[in-house]
């Protein structure tokens, strides 16, 4: 196993798939010559050439639309949208075209494409460059959605996304790019639709995603150490398909569910999971379902303010301690 940073693992996943299949192509702003503004595509131009790794104009609708047109005619495009906030400028292409086309034509074609993007807070970029918008994508039928939390996962889920015959949105997390971790040597392909139990405990189940996973794990350590509360932590990894089996099984075991979300409070993935649990294992619950989220505000730019807004280890510990009685 090699130790890679999360950003290196992104490039490794793309490279693995481009190597395997000539139909895989990459396009986006500054992805080629510059290796990506987050350096997640470094080396790909050199390795696969300008025919397969292409810089584009600042035209997100054209980027994603071109990926769609190419996917329905034989290619497997990976389109980069630099920041997930910019989904808003090409949302029609994502939500109305890519998500719906296969359904509308009753399956006459498929859209094997990937849209990858840098999501989330941590870089102090302010309200228009720090959003977590995985819930936007989850709310639209026809999109598969993953949000990996480790280098190994980002490589493996990227590969799985490329191999999947349907459109997959890969949310890479800005706050995790610099983190490091072991990544299996050789070909590494993960499975969409699988959550992972990162840690097992007896008292509560904490469900988290992406940057919130390491925070939930750290919170769990502290809860165990300082407050005698033993927590299971589940990394959702894949919002669509959603591994409800794993999540429900873990909630049933502890009887208590906490979700930790970076997206603003209303209508997040946490609400979806909370609702599924409140319907399907209501009688197994021992207490209220509690969502820990960013408040329903845009994100501020200053570091202290951003840190205050997004769920922190302290806030998770504090919330659980106060309510897991």
């Amino acid at each position, binding site marked *: 196993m090699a130790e890679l940073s999360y950003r290196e693992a992104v490039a490794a996943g793309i490279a693995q798939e481009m190597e395997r299949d000539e139909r895989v*192509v990459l396009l986006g702003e500054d992805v080629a010559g510059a290796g990506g503004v987050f350096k997640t595509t470094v080396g790909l131009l050199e390795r696969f050439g300008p*025919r397969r790794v*292409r810089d*584009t*104009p600042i*035209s*997100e*609708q*054209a980027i*994603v*639309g*071109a*990926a*769609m*047109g*190419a*996917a*329905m*005619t*034989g*290619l497997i*495009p990976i389109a980069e949208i630099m920041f997930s906030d910019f989904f808003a400028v090409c949302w*029609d*292409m994502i939500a*109305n*075209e890519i998500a719906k*086309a*296969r*359904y*509308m*034509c*009753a*399956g*006459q*074609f*498929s859209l*094997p494409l990937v849209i990858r993007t840098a999501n989330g807070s941590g870089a102090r970029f302010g309200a228009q460059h720090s959003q977590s918008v995985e819930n936007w994508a989850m709310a639209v*039928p*026809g999109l598969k959605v993953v949000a990996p939390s480790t280098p190994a996962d980002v490589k493996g889920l990227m590969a799985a996304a490329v191999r999947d*015959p*349907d459109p997959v949105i890969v949310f890479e997390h800005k706050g995790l790019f610099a983190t490091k971790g072991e990544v299996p040597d050789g070909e590494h392909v993960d499975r969409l*639709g699988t959550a992972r139990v990162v840690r097992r405990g007896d008292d509560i189940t904490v469900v988290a995603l992406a940057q919130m996973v390491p925070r939930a794990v750290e919170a769990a350590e502290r809860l165990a150490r300082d407050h005698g509360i033993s927590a299971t932590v589940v990394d959702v990894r894949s919002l*669509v*398909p*959603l*591994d*409800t*089996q794993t999540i429900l099984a873990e909630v049933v075991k502890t009887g208590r569910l906490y979700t930790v979300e970076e997206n603003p409070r209303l209508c997040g993935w946490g609400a979806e999971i909370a609702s599924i649990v409140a319907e399907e294992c209501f009688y197994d619950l021992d207490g209220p379902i509690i969502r820990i989220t960013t408040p329903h505000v845009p994100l501020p730019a200053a570091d202290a303010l951003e840190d205050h807004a997004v769920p922190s280890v302290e806030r998770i510990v504090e919330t659980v301690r106060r309510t897991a009685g």
Partner: protein
Amino acid sequence: MLEIRVVEKRAYDLFLQNLVKGTSHLALGQEAVAAGFGVAMRRDDYTFCTYRGHHHTLARGAPMVGVLGELMGRKCGQMGGKGGSMHLTSVRHGVMGSYAIVGAHLPIAAGAAWSAQYRESGQVAECFFGDGTTNIGAFHEALNFAVVWKLPVIFVCENNLYMEYTPIASVTAVEHPAGLPPVIVDGNDADAVYQLAKDSLAAARAGKGPSLIEAKTYRHSGHSRADPAKYRPAGELDEWLKRDPVTLYRTRLLEAGVPEAALREIEGIAQRAVDEATEAAKASPPSPLDVVEQDVWSDGGSAWRN
């Protein structure tokens, strides 16, 4: 062209009989654009069109029963009723979809052209849209993108003078979009369209990049079935009816020496074909309800959880 005309009229009749439920946007008067391009295209070229796409779909050879059946929500419909009039698609015939959000299909067509270029398949993507579309952002992005990447795509603007109910001249200043000067053609003259189509297709196939064509034409009916088209100045429709593409072409054939009887026969054949398609569509059962949860994904289903 004639068949398209008869199908469009039939679609209107079926709507009056309450057999077509949703909306539909007829191309009555615009048939020559579809016919001219349809004939000039290679079998494996791609067509991308709008909600006003019956004509382009038929011109590529998609069966009438699939089109009429789709409008009527029948099982025999091109997409089993899931798409409806605005989303006709027949991949088998190179019709890669009809798109109902103004401008959206231009970048998508550029993407198909990119794929053809990448695969060196020699295919060309044709993308049809209306005059109103020149005002939306996606139009601009797609043209620039296609020029910069030198893609084999032809953007064809069917300028019928109106967006929905608003005359286009009152809301647009677009003249020289993104470095791609438009070539103008009489969209009611099927031969002129055919010739230009052939030339631009050849140019695209030769790697010369995209072209932009403005076909001047007119829709005889309202924007959609809900529209009585009262906003038109008096006499405008009459002027255009004089230049009806189907009549124009008929006259031209007569002048070229084709006997009236032969034309009558062709007309009869078209009429019968549409009648038969209509009956077949009527006889087809409604779409089964279980298709509602099918074909979101490539596995044929729509499961979002395990």
